[in-house]
C-alpha cells in the first residue's frame, strides 16, 4: 500500500521526500524509489512552502516579530540599555516612570536601590531568553538520544528510561524543580538544569512515540533491507520524520521554560541578586506593591509579552508544520 | 399535488478559491408514496441537494431556490424553529454511514425514543412500546435487549436497521435515503434495501433514494433523476430511462452496467467529474462526451422538453442517435 503510494503519488509530502532523499544516499531499493518520486513539475521549495503556510497566520507572524524584537534587544543590550543593570543611583530611588511624573533619564523609573528598571528589563531579556534556549537545546538533544534509544533498543533500556520519565511526570513540575534547586543550590545554571529535567519527559515521550510510529513504515524496512546501519537508521532515516512535532514542542517548550525559571527566580531559588532576572525582580518588588506599582507591573508584563509571543509563534509553527496536531 | 416540490435549487460553498457551486439549478418532484431515485457519481451533488432540503448543511453553504415546498409548506420561508417541527417528523433522512451516524454515548433506545419525544405526544411507556415495535419492524431480534445496547455493540447492518427504525419513529411522509447500503457488506446490502422497500410499500411513505447503483434503480424506482457535476442532466420514469436514455451521460452510465456489456471489456466513461478548477465553459459533460461538438464545448446546454427526459443537452439522444435541435445555435 504505502510503496504504491510512494510511486504513484506525484507530490509526496515534504517530510516523506526528506527521508527518501536521505536514504537515497545509500544503495538499493531506496535509491529506485528516489528516482521514481522525483517531482515532475516545478514545486516550491519546502522552506518556501513552510513560510507561505506560516505567514497565513497573522498571529504567528506578529509573535515572530515580537520575539525577534526581544531577541535583538537581548543581543544588543549593552548598546541599547541606557544604564548598567546593576548600577545604583542612590539619589533617585523609587523614581516613577516618565508617564507617571518621572524623567527621561530613567524612562521606566528606578527600583528600591536606584537601579534603572528599563536597563534591568533589557538585560533580563538576555537571561530569560538564554534560559529558554539553553533548556530547549539541552532537552531536545537529550530527548532525541533517550527517545530514540528507547524506541530502537526496547527491552531494559526502554523500561528504565520510560519509568524514570513517568516518575518525573508524577512530581508536579515546580515542586520537582524546587527539589533539584534545593539540592544543587540556587543559581542561574542550576535553574537551567532543574527546568531541563522537569521538561525532559515531554521530549523523550514525543521522540519515542514518533519513532515507534515511523519504524513500522515501509521506507524504514527498505532502508534496513538496503543494509543501513543502526545509528544511521536512527538519526538519518527516522529522525527527520519525527522533526515536525519536535520542532513545535521545542518552540512551545521555550515559553514554558521561561515561565518556570521566572517562578524559581520569584521564589528566590533562581538567579541571585543583583542579576536582573525578571522573576527575581518581581520578588524584590513585592514589598513595594503600594508605593511603586511600576516595579511590580513591568517585569511581569515583560514575561507575559515574551511568553505570549513565543506561544503565538509556536501555534503558527504547529499549524504550518504538522496539520495533524492542529487541535487547540 | 406533489409532496416535495423543488425548483431551481442551487447550493454553493464558500471556499478559499471563491465560491463553489455544488448543486446547480436542480428540480425535483416527489408525490406521496412515490419512490424517486437520484443517481450520479460521487461529487455530483446529489447528497448536498438533499441535505439542503433537510436544512443540514454547514453555515458556509448558501442555498437558493425558486421553490422548495414540502407537504404544502414553503421550506424557504419557515423559521428555523418551524422547520425543526417538520424535520425528523414528516421529513426524515437516513445516512450513508450507519456506524458513525449513531451517537456512541447513548443507547439505541434513547436515540430512537428521542425523536418521538421531540415530536409526538406520547408517554414514556408508550415511547418505549413503540421503540420495541419499531425494532421488530426492522427485523432486529430481541428488541427489548437491543434497546439498551450502545451503538458500538452493533454491526453495520444492525446500525442501519436502527437508523431506519429511528426514521420511521414518527410515521414520516417522506424519507430521504442517502446511499443507505454503500457502507455495508455486499451480503447485507440486499437485505437492507429489501427492508427499506418493503417498509416503503407497506406504509406508503414517499422515498427519495440516492444511489450510484443503476441496478438498484432499475429494480426499485418509479422515476429517476440523473445528476452530473451538480446539475440535473436527465429525469424520466425508470422504464423510459432504461429503454431510451436521452442524455449521453445517462447512456454511458447504462452502457457501463455489466449486464449490458456486449464485448469482453466493460465500457467505462473516460475522465473524471470536473472540480472547482477545471470547470468547462460549455456543457459540463462535454470533455467526456463522445458526441460533443464545438457548440457543446463553448455554450451551456439548454434544457430539453419532457418528451426528451428534460435532458440538459445540445443534442439529446433518441434511440442512441443525437438529435440536432434548431434553436441550439
Amino acid at each position, binding site marked *: 500500500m504505502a510503496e504504491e503510494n510512494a510511486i504513484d503519488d506525484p507530490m509526496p509530502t515534504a517530510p516523506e521526500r526528506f527521508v527518501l532523499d536521505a536514504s537515497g544516499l545509500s544503495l538499493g531499493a531506496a535509491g529506485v524509489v528516489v528516482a521514481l518520486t522525483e517531482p515532475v513539475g516545478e514545486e516550491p521549495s519546502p522552506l518556501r512552502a513552510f513560510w507561505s503556510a506560516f505567514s497565513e497566520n497573522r498571529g504567528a507572524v506578529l509573535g515572530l516579530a515580537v520575539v525577534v524584537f526581544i531577541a535583538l534587544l537581548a543581543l544588543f543590550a549593552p548598546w541599547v540599555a541606557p544604564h548598567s543593570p546593576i548600577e545604583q543611583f542612590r539619589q533617585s530611588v523609587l523614581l516613577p516612570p516618565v508617564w507617571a511624573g518621572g524623567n527621561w533619564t530613567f524612562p521606566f523609573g528606578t527600583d528600591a536601590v536606584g537601579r534603572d528598571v528599563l536597563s534591568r528589563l533589557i538585560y533580563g531579556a538576555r537571561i530569560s531568553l538564554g534560559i529558554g534556549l539553553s533548556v530547549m537545546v539541552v532537552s531536545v538533544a537529550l530527548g532525541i538520544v533517550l527517545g530514540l534509544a528507547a524506541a530502537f533498543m526496547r527491552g531494559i533500556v526502554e523500561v528504565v528510561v520510560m*519509568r524514570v520519565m*513517568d*516518575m518525573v511526570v*508524577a*512530581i*508536579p513540575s*515546580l*515542586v520537582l524543580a*524546587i*527539589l533539584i534547586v*534545593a*539540592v544543587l*543550590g540556587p543559581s542561574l545554571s542550576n535553574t537551567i538544569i532543574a527546568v531541563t529535567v522537569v521538561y525532559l519527559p515531554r521530549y523523550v515521550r514525543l521522540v519515542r512515540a514518533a519513532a515507534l510510529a515511523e519504524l513500522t513504515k515501509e521506507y524504514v524496512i527498505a532502508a534496513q533491507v538496503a543494509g543501513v546501519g543502526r545509528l544511521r537508521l536512527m538519526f538519518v532515516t527516522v529522525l527527520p520524520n519525527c522533526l515536525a512535532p519536535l520542532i513545535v514542542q521545542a518552540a512551545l517548550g521555550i515559553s514554558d521554560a521561561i*515561565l518556570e525559571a*521566572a*517562578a524559581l527566580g*520569584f*521564589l528566590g*531559588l533562581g538567579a541571585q541578586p543583583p542579576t536582573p532576572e525578571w*522573576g527575581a525582580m*518581581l520578588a524584590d518588588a*513585592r514589598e513595594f*506593591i503600594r508605593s511603586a*506599582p511600576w516595579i*511590580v*507591573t513591568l*517585569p*511581569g508584563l515583560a*514575561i507575559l509579552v515574551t*511568553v*505570549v509571543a513565543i*506561544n*503565538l509563534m509556536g*501555534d503558527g509553527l504547529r499549524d504550518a508544520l504538522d496539520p495533524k496536531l492542529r*487541535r*487547540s | 399535488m406533489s409532496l416535495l416540490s423543488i425548483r431551481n435549487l442551487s447550493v454553493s460553498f464558500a471556499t478559499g478559491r471563491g465560491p463553489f457551486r455544488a448543486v446547480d439549478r436542480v428540480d425535483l418532484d416527489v408525490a406521496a408514496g412515490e419512490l424517486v431515485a437520484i443517481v450520479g457519481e460521487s461529487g455530483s451533488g446529489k447528497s448536498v441537494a438533499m441535505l439542503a432540503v*433537510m436544512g*443540514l448543511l454547514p453555515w458556509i453553504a448558501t442555498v437558493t431556490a425558486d421553490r422548495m415546498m414540502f407537504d404544502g409548506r414553503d421550506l424557504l420561508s419557515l423559521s428555523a424553529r418551524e*422547520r*425543526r417541527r417538520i*424535520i*425528523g*417528523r414528516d421529513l*426524515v*433522512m437516513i445516512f450513508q*454511514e450507519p456506524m*458513525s*451516524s449513531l*451517537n*456512541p*454515548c*447513548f443507547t439505541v433506545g434513547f436515540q430512537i425514543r*428521542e*425523536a418521538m419525544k*421531540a*415530536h409526538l405526544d406520547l408517554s414514556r411507556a408508550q415511547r418505549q412500546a413503540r421503540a420495541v415495535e419499531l425494532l421488530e419492524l426492522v427485523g432486529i431480534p430481541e428488541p427489548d435487549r437491543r434497546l439498551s445496547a*450502545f451503538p*458500538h*455493540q452493533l454491526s453495520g447492518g444492525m446500525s442501519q436497521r436502527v437508523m431506519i427504525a*429511528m426514521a420511521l419513529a414518527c410515521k414520516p411522509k417522506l424519507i430521504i435515503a442517502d446511499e443507505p447500503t454503500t457502507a455495508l457488506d455486499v451480503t447485507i446490502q440486499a437485505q437492507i434495501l429489501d427492508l427499506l422497500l418493503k417498509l416503503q410499500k407497506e406504509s406508503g411513505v414517499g422515498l427519495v433514494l440516492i444511489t450510484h447503483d443503476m441496478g438498484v434503480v432499475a429494480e426499485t424506482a418509479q422515476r429517476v433523476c440523473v445528476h452530473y457535476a451538480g446539475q440535473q442532466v436527465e429525469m424520466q420514469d425508470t422504464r423510459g430511462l432504461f429503454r431510451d436514455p436521452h442524455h449521453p451521460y445517462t447512456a454511458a452510465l447504462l452502457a457501463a452496467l455489466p449486464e449490458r456489456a456486449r464485448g469482453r471489456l466493460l465500457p467505462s466513461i473516460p475522465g473524471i467529474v470536473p472540480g472547482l478548477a477545471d470547470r468547462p465553459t460549455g456543457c459540463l459533460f462535454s470533455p467526456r462526451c463522445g458526441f460533443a461538438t464545438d457548440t457543446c464545448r463553448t455554450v451551456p446546454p439548454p434544457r430539453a422538453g419532457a418528451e426528451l427526459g428534460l435532458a440538459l443537452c445540445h443534442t439529446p439522444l433518441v434511440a442512441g442517435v443525437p438529435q440536432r435541435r434548431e434553436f441550439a445555435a
Partner: protein
Amino acid sequence: MLNLILRRVALTVPTFVALMFVTFVAVRLVPGDPIEARTGERGIAPERLAQLRHELGLDQPVWRQFLDYIYGLLHGDFGVSIVTKTPVLHEFLILFPATLELAFCALVFAVVLGVPAGVLAAVKRGSVLDHSVMTVALAGYSMPIFWWGLLLIMFMSEYLGLTPVSGRMDLINYYFEPVTGFMLIDSLLSGQEGAFGAAAAHLVLPSIVLGTIPLAVIARMTRSSMLEVLGEDYVRTARAKGLSPLRVVGLHTLRNALIPVVTVVGLQTGTLLAGAVLTETIFAWPGVGKWLIESISRRDYPALQGGIMLISAIVILVNLIVDMLYVAINPRIRHG
C-alpha cells in the same frame, strides 16, 4: 474492566519505588547540615552533636536509612519533622485541607468558565466571540501566575479594597476550632455571622490566580474537541431529528466532546499543586505548597521528603482516578 483497573494500578508501583529512591537520594544531597540549620549554633559540642545525629538516625549508613524510610512509608510513617518534631504525615494532613480547598475552588472556577467559553467559541467559530475567547485563553496560558497574583492584589485589594490581601481567614473578628479543615465548611459550622462570607472573600483571588492556567487549557481543549465532534455524522443525525440546537450542542455534542476534556481536567492536578506553591506563597495561604518552600529554607529533610512523596502520590492517584473516570464516561471502552 476489573482487569484494566488492576493493570493500571500495577503500573504505578515501579513509579512509586523510583519516586521513593529519588526523593531519598536527592534530599540526602541537599547541602548544609540539618542539625546546624536547626540549632543555629556553630561549634556545637561533639558529644551533643553525636547524640543529636543518633536521635535522628543520621549516623546510620545511607542504605540503612533508605530501608528504614521505605519500611516507615509502608507503615504510614513519613518521618518526623526535624523542626517541629511532629510526624510529617500529621503536619501534612493539617495543612492539606487548605490546599485542597484552594485547588478545588480554582478548578471549579476554571471549569465553570472554561467549558462554556470553549463551547461558545466552537459554536460561534470565527466570530468576534471566538477570537476573544482564544485571545484570553492564550494570555491565560502564558500567564506568570505569581505576577498575576500581585497584580490582582494591587488592584482588587490595595486599590479597590474589595478583597483581603492574604491568609485564609479574618482571625481578628472570627475564631473557631477547625473541624473539617475546610474553612468554608468550618465557618458555616461555627455559626458566626459573616464568617462564611469572610472565608469566601479570602478564597476569591487565590482561586482566580490558581485557576487561570487550567481555565485557559480547558477553554482551548473544549473548543477544539467541540469543533471536532460538531463535524461528526451523529451530530448531523441529531439535527436531522429536528432537535433544538440547545439539545444538539448541549447533549449530543458536549457529551462526546467532554470525554477528552475530563482527561485534561484530571491531568491539571499536577499543574494545580505546582501552582499552589506559588499561589500560597503570594497569598500567605497556610497550605502544603508554602510549607514545602519553608521546609527547604529550614533544611527540614524529612518534611521535604515526605511532602514530595505525599504530593506525588496524590498526583499519581488522581491520574489513576481520571483514567477510571475516562472509562466510566466512554461506553466504547466500558463495554469493550
